[in-house]
């Protein structure tokens, strides 16, 4: 589904990603772990198409298409979803309006007609019920005045409604207490499916206690320096990133 080949990228002319290879197949959940400054967030922004990140070498294919040629909204249309580390506030725009706009924009991209407003609201309320989210949540302005946990929960709601092919979770666990972490993990686990791939970017192993990945990779110095199963995450938790940081320096 997603193939990253020999990716090199710079931010402000400074090389951050230095020859990264990664392949995700449908149904797989991959975790990328790494120390601060390893290029984890850069990777998520490159995949989602944010300005300010320049790819200098390599390619990224999504279902065979050159992803790097597409605008951010086109990538969303193709089925890529990024759960933000810091979800953005949009005052005055109700959550339900935002979700409807997003769903219709994606449908338009795929050449499908707009969704019926009533049917959409009905489906939305059902999704909320499933995620244990109060209906009042839908009337509030997007992330405005939300607590950290509410913001992350909102990302999970968007993930459920947009049902992408590839979900990228960028440090979704940061700043969450254990209850919120569990809610987020439940949301993600409910979305696991044979057609959907997930890329979970995290600094800490604790999220992976709740979302058990198929593959774990260590990103250090802009490259994948080790790959393995869930046991690799436990090893990192016990021993830290020291070993890999040293490797990078060598």
């Amino acid at each position, binding site marked *: 589904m997603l193939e990253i080949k020999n990716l090199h990228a710079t931010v402000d002319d400074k090389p951050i990603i230095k020859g990264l290879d990664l392949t995700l197949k449908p149904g797989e959940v991959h975790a990328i772990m790494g120390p601060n400054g390893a290029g984890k967030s850069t990777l998520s922004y490159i995949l*989602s*198409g*944010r*300005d*300010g990140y320049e790819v200098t070498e390599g390619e990224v294919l999504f279902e065979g298409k050159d992803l790097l040629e597409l*605008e*951010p*909204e086109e*990538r*969303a*249309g193709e089925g890529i*979803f*990024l759960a*933000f580390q810091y*979800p*953005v*506030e*949009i*005052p*005055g*725009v109700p959550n339900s*309006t*935002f979700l409807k*706009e*997003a*769903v219709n*924009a*994606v449908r338009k*991209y795929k050449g499908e007609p707009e969704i019926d407003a009533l049917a959409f609201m009905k489906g939305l309320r059902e999704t909320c019920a499933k995620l244990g989210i109060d209906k009042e949540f839908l009337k509030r*302005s*997007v992330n405005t005045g939300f607590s950290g946990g509410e913001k992350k929960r909102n990302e999970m709601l*968007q993930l459920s409604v*947009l049902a992408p092919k590839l979900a990228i979770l960028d440090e979704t666990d940061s700043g969450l207490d254990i209850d919120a972490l569990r809610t987020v993990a439940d949301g993600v686990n409910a979305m696991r499916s044979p057609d959907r791939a997930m890329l979970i970017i995290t600094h800490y192993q604790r999220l992976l206690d709740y979302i058990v990945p198929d593959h774990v990779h260590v990103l250090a110095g802009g490259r994948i320096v080790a790959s393995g199963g869930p046991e690799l995450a436990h090893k990192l938790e016990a021993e830290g990133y020291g070993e890999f940081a040293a490797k990078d320096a060598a």
Partner: protein
Amino acid sequence: MAATAETVEKVQSLSERYKYGFVTDIETDMAPKGLSEDIVRFISAKKNEPEWLLEWRLKAYRHWLEMPEPQWAKVDFPEIDYQDAYYYAAPKMKDQPKSLDEVDPKLLETYEKLGIPLREQEILAGVAVDAVFDSVSVATTFKHKLEEVGVIFCSISEALQEHPELVRKYLGTVVPYADNKHACLNSAVFTDGSFVYIPPGVRCPMELSTYFRINEQNTGQFERTLIIADEGSYVSYLEGCTAPMRDENQLHAAVVELIALKDAEIKYSTVQNWYPGDEDGKGGIYNFVTKRGDCRGDYSKISWTQVETGSAITWKYPSCLLRGDHSVGEFYSIAITNNRQQADTGTKMVHLGRNTKSRIISKGISAGRSQQTYRGLVRMGSKAEGARNYTQCDSLLIGESCGAHTVPYIESKNRSAQVEHEATTSRISEDQLFYCRQRGIPEEDAVALVVNGFCREVLQQLPMEFAVEAQKLVGISLEGSVG
């Protein structure tokens, strides 16, 4: 390209897409160019007006000659040559139309292009429309239904023929002819406009609406609107405005007077989309409008809501005189400027009665190289015991080359009066745009979404059917981002 730079660029291409920039080819009846006492007499004679009104017009004209141009606004434009314009232009018609069937089909086509098919509205929407085409009111729909409850809704020319005593009693009592240079000119040469009278205790059964359009080249449009809500009555009125694309500037100097007697309420909403000029600031409407409401009776209420997206220059301060005790004045405003548009707009709340209240919510959005100023006066008179005001001014900037300014004037002569003022300035952030785009929403739609969110408090004040229109207009005004 950075998202903001891109937005700015796209926004700048907007004016080429002014959707209402077509001209209707229709024969018009015009007065000679220029302004003189003879022109004033010509207009008055054309309209078969009573002697007192001609005298009033002439008094205004003579005063106007002496009056200086208002200078306080932060707008910049070359001196207006008042002799280089026509002051009367009317579509040629054999007689006044009795019904829509007698109206020139070309005129009706124009209104259809504007999105207000009169016929359909008559049948479907339940909105009574008084359409002003250049200077003469063309057709008034729904008149009969309104007559049943005693509401008078007609052109001001017609009111002068049919209800001269009402017009004489109220005309110029809120905005005197000598109020300011633009209002003074209007008093001398106004050609038409709407007249509304709601009898005591009547709640007007439908939204009343006027659609103004400037068609003829070089014509100023000087309409005059007079709305009287008698004791205990209620009316909601909407005006919408467009004009074709022209290279030269056109002057629009309107006057709107509202009078609310005891326990009466008037809600006046404007969606203004005059041609704003091109991206270099060429052409466009000079919108110099005097709007004022007089809460004459106790417990009366006047509420102004405006969505201002057009005009090269906007000079406009819809105001409330809160004379009656416990009367309420409100001002809700969205102003969007783009390219080289200039807007100096705001309100005046003059508290004279006891326990009077006013509320001002202003949302300004500046893009391109536009300059926008909120200018607001809150005055608490010496007898305004317990009066209260709340003002909130928010500015949103798009791009690096625009300006937003907030100029509040507060005067209080009463110790018990309370005045609150809050102001914020913000930008559409790259983060917001990227967040929307990552969810699939293209950039230009994302801008419209963020701006609509910013304006939500004011949009909610508009009557339902117009809120939708205004929301779309917000998108169109900042379009150009649509690729």
